[in-house]
């Protein structure tokens, strides 16, 4: 998917000009990007699974939604927006 999105890659700036990455550099960068996306999606999935597990456990204990929100770590509370 990344290779379709980025058939070539370049580095540089408006001031110094742009240089296209060699095939080796291209492959290395695309692989890094792929790993980063997979890691990020995995972290997000883990965090959501942990949150869901905690909520289910609190619900079994008969806690209200407000009480559950108060118990969850701030990083696991769903933002208002």
């Amino acid at each position: 998917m990344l290779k379709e999105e980025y058939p070539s890659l370049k580095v540089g700036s408006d001031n110094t000009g742009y240089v296209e990455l060699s095939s080796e550099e291209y492959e290395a960068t695309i692989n890094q990007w792929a790993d980063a996306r997979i890691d990020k999606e995995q972290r997000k999935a883990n965090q959501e699974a942990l949150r869901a597990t905690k909520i289910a456990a609190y619900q079994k204990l008969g806690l209200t939604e407000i009480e559950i929100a108060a118990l969850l770590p701030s990083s696991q509370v769903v933002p208002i927006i």
Partner: protein
Amino acid sequence: MTIGRIPSVEGGIQPTIFDAKADILTATAADTPARLAVGANDTVLTADSSTSTGLKWAAPAGGASGFTLIKRASFSAVANTGTTFDNIFTSTYSSYLVILENFYAVTGADDPEFQLRYAGPTTMAVQYLGSTGKLNTAGTVSWIDNYDEPVFKLGDEIGDAGFPGGGQIFFNGVGNTSERATWRGQYLGGQNAANFYFAGNQYNAQTYTGLIFKSSSSNITGVISVYGMAKS
């Protein structure tokens, strides 16, 4: 009142020495009066021993800010800025301020990242240590893993073209001698205007000379300015 002559104890200066509005009276040597024509608008009278009158009209010097712009570069849709920010850290300064403007990636949820560069230049791609906190508009606090990483993450939402990010980083321990670089700063990014605050260091000592900025998994766009801060 009409004055024909400027009184003088001896002799006197003829009014005809003046030729135009704003001419001033000066001297080229002892007992040698001279006329100096007015300078351009907004210039100020300045001593200059190399001129015949010892004076000149010159633009006023600006006050020293203590900040010197070393490099400013804009880039559009690139994988990284590795060719752009080499040789910015030198022994001229010991503290540096890096400003990130209008910074965003194709994928707004990417992480904004940087790596240090040193002689070669070689990219340091291991053992970035530090902490990055995230405070979003709902008051939710979380953190981004920055322990023993191949890059340092300024946050986890770089922003996109519609909601670009920006920030500032202060660097020390770079450009002077082989040592562990340290940095601290703040980044605003993402559609939800998350506030990222961070501090970190590079475990491996080197004489660091430059930076690469990048996004974790897509092309980036932005403008970066690097300032050196006067040592005294």
